[in-house]
């Protein structure tokens, strides 16, 4: 399996992208902002098309567009919270602009735009070159430490905003910085693995970790680990079954992990509570004596 260069590239890039998505995703779920991640992943599509239409490097277009829109979302969303409706409206407009650039680009180069669109949405992790993989590693290696640096105040600001403000935590600046990091993650992941896989890796492992671990640092680590595990299992599965696209395999694994976490945490507390209840009544007389 590792004898193939395409698989080594996919594995290397996939691991680091999953690590970044898991870390960023945990805070997205904590702040109920997965929609922002979704929107930013589609912004990357528009950015790439705009750069292609203008004849610029698509990677520059990607990063410029996602970071800019991340700032816009933060500003028009209520108090840097990127509120649901604001995201939706900006999102729809950005998609409309994407269609516009698609028409511009399509008329300029004649055909081939469908392929670019499909690639931006669904990605092709098995089609990455060695240099693509190195870029993915470098970007993720920048995002993960940045998240760790702001993790403590960001956690405070996300869990209890008012108290954080009162204690002098710069919540607005943190919200902005965080969305910029989401934008950078989205830009990198979209052009490497596609918007679809990005969203799956942002939402599912983080949702599972959030359910399973109460300690935030543990949950943050668990989220990154689950994302990497989904990526590894998905890549192997897709290698073993050639008709299964890698992004589908990775998302299926991630969704299965989330489902498992949901079932475990939805049932366990009830079972435990029932047991505790019976023990309480059984021990009741002894305790009162």
């Amino acid at each position, binding site marked *: 399996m590792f004898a193939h260069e395409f698989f080594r590239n996919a594995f290397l890039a996939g691991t680091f992208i999953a690590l970044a998505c898991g870390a960023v995703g945990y805070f*997205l*779920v*904590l*702040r*109920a*902002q*997965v*929609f922002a*991640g*979704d929107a930013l992943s589609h912004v990357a599509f528009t950015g790439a098309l705009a750069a292609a239409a203008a004849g610029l490097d698509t990677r520059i277009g990607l990063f410029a567009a996602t970071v800019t829109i991340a700032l816009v979302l933060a500003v*028009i969303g209520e108090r840097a919270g990127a*509120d*649901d*409706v604001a*995201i*939706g*409206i*900006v*999102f*729809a*407009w950005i*998609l*409309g*602009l*994407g*269609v*516009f650039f*698609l*028409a511009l680009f399509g*008329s300029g180069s004649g055909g081939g735009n*469908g392929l670019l*669109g*499909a690639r931006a*949405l*669904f990605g092709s992790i098995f089609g990455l070159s060695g240099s693509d993989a190195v870029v993915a590693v470098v970007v993720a290696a920048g995002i993960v430490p940045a998240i760790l640096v702001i993790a403590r105040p960001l956690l405070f600001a996300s869990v209890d905003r008012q108290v954080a403000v009162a204690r002098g935590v710069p919540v607005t600046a943190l919200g902005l910085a965080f969305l910029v990091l989401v934008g950078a993650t989205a830009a990198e992941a979209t052009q490497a693995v596609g918007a*679809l*896989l990005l*969203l*799956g890796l*942002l*939402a*599912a492992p*983080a*949702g599972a970790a*959030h*359910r399973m671990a109460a300690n935030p640092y543990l949950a943050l680590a668990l989220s990154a680990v689950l994302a990497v595990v989904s990526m590894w299992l998905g890549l192997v599965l897709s290698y073993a079954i050639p*008709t*299964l*696209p890698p*992004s*589908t395999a990775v*998302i*299926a694994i*991630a*969704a299965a992990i*989330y489902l498992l976490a*949901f079932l475990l*945490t*939805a049932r366990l*507390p009830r079972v435990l509570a029932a047991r505790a209840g019976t023990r309480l009544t059984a021990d009741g007389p002894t305790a009162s004596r």
Partner: protein
Amino acid sequence: MPAASALAGAGLSPDPISDLQQLTEYPFMVNALEAGTIVAVTAGAVGWFMVLRRQTFAGHTLSLMAFPGATFALLLGLSAAAGYFAFATVAALVIGVAGGAQSDHGGRGQVSAVTGSVQAFGLACGFLFLSLYRGVLANYESLLFGSFLGITRAQVLTLAIVAAATLGVIAVIGRPLLFASIDEGVARARGVPTRALASGFLLLLGLAVAATAQITGVLLVFALLVAPPATAQLITPRVGLGLALSIALGVFVSWLGLALAYFYGYPVGFYITTVAFAMYVIARAARAIVEHPTFLPGRAPVADAGA
């Protein structure tokens, strides 16, 4: 579309009557205008509740279920309707269950995570079906971004039926849904079945939006679902007026978008989203000015619309 503007030839003139005549000269434009009106009315009504309930993410996710639905139907040789109704129903129920369980675990973050996972998984399924099918899906891009200009009479009729059914359900559950959306705790205490209503609304949203997206594209439905209702809620907190305004703005946006696309080329989706976005920005700016303390001193500030 460049082809459409070539057909029109003349372009906009100073005379609005002759413009309107040009616009309705071709049957495909009549179909497009009718479809645009029907979609705008449905989206304006359903979207008003969606925006009130802050469920834009769920709305977007459900509209995307048209993609796995269509590819699933293609793969099995079923009718497209069966495919998207199946996927929209399942997705709406999963998000509904997660929303119902939110009070006991994790709150809004979990709902957001579930919605994102459902969307990613649904699209991944669609991608799998597409690669299993191995054939060429003629226009998955038009599924996502829509082409209003190829709509047939039969599709207009389908849209009208979906719209009538959706508006009928809204009329029946509108009052309790409004109560549950504004104050869930009080509504539950008064015996309103808030959980059933929440799931029922998502189901309605999913079925209406997926059925519509199948014909007009995800982007157009989504744009009409969010921007006109959000603009209406910025302008007025009143329910009846807000709903009417939301529908009127939606119809205005889709007509203007279609006319611009007809006369100047470029995709309809671009014009509709741009007009809708501009409208929202203007409403927001106007509201910020009106609410500013230095504006007309002595007047009470405008009541908050919850927007």
